[in-house]
């Protein structure tokens, strides 16, 4: 087990209602799990609780892995080039210069950006920027990656290829990945297990396993059982959505 929420209750200070109440769930090691839900449902709040930016009023969050957080917008520093951006966590952890250069070079080649080390974020495309942000998340040394709607700002073509890219990375990396998304297709295509956030406050998560192998292809999304699963998921989410 990589992460456990045990009877967690959380409320933002200046708001009367709880976001989550007495919520419990577990995340297994090595899996790729999606959090899905309408906006404002608490999925991003769950992330902020996991990475310690927020603390629950009640309950316990047990996180056995080191977490690396990849925010929704890449948040690359425009004053740093690709290499320097990837090295930020290593600089913070005071890793020696030669070592962090070597580590950054390895990560940059892992995300397929060799030759872009000295480029600045504004010279990169949206997909490349996300890959730099992913490399920066890896350089924290985390075993659990928290990806907060990482592809939502990309155009649909780039998003599709980035999703396939992420699957490849996950298969190669042996890391636990948690993904926040509001895109049903993305959740089904990427995850082994989908956790649906419903209700105000969220009291429990609806769990939907995705019956697809690790090395899946996009054409598998056309299987009847997957189409049915997606329809059910959309139905659940529509009940939640307030227009």
């Amino acid at each position, binding site marked *: 087990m990589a992460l456990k929420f045990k009877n967690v209750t959380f409320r933002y200070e200046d708001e009367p209602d709880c976001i989550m109440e007495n919520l419990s769930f577990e995340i297994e090691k090595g899996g790729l799990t999606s959090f899905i839900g309408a906006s404002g449902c608490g999925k991003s709040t769950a992330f902020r609780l996991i990475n*310690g*930016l927020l603390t629950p009023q009640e309950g316990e969050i047990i996180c056995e892995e080191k977490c690396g957080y990849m*925010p929704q917008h890449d*948040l690359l*520093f425009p004053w740093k080039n690709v290499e320097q951006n990837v090295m930020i966590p290593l600089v*913070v952890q005071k890793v020696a210069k030669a070592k962090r250069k070597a580590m950054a070079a390895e990560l940059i080649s892992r995300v397929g950006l060799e030759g872009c080390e000295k480029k600045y974020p*504004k010279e990169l495309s949206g997909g490349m920027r996300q890959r730099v942000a992913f490399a920066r998340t890896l350089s924290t040394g985390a075993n659990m990656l928290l990806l907060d709607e990482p592809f939502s700002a990309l155009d649909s073509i780039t998003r599709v290829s980035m999703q396939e890219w992420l699957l490849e990375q996950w298969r190669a990396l042996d890391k636990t990945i948690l993904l926040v998304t509001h895109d049903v297709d993305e959740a089904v295509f990427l995850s082994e297990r989908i956790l649906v956030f419903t209700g105000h406050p969220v009291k429990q998560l609806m769990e939907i396993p995705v019956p697809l192998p690790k090395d899946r292809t996009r054409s598998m999304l056309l299987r009847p059982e997957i189409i049915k699963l997606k329809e059910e998921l959309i139905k659940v989410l529509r009940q939640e959505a307030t227009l």
Partner: protein
Amino acid sequence: MKKRHLAASILAIVILVLWQLLAMKVNIPHIIPSPVAIVKKTWELRETLFLVQLPVTLYTIVVGFLISVGISLVLATAMEEFEVVEAMFYPVLVVTQTIPVMCISPLFVLWFGYTQTARIIAVVLATFFAITLNVFDGLKRTDVRKIELMQTIGASALQIFLHVKVPTALPMFLTALKMTLPWAVIDAAVAEWLGANEGLGYFSKRMISTMDGPAVFAPVLILTIIALMGMAILNLIDKKVGIYRSEV
């Protein structure tokens, strides 16, 4: 860019030529000295202008500007880090920015006499409000999400300050320097008018009493060149380190 430079140069040359023609037509050098006469005079007076007066004025400008930058950086950082300091200083700074420092410069002469200290204080007061406010606004502009990202990595407050806040504020700091450098030059010269027995401003004023038009303008020419050179240096630095201004 090149075309724009050319256009500006043409206008400058036209103005200079018209000025020259007008000066030749009027032909009263102490009322309208011609550009050529000013340059000639500058050359004639080169020893006193460049070796005696210029170093004095340059010292006032450089020392005043450096002190001003130092105070500004400390105050802006303190305002950003401590809310009490911000609440105390911010409104006061906004108001004091409107005080015409030149008009209170005679006070410094009263307090400090005809000293360089009085003139340096005038330069500091003329520039530090604007630099402080710009640096403070720059620090405040830091993206909260970037700070949070750093917190998830485990960065200390000092690391967040150095790696996120300082780079965010840097372009605005450079803007402030470019904005206030000409003020520093002007105020140093005016402070010399008001109370000095040395420096380019003092020299210019003394030449008025001798009705020597070109000699009044010669120090002004040098001051202008100093300001332009300072701006050129700042622009060069800005092109190197401040280019991400629009992305912050």
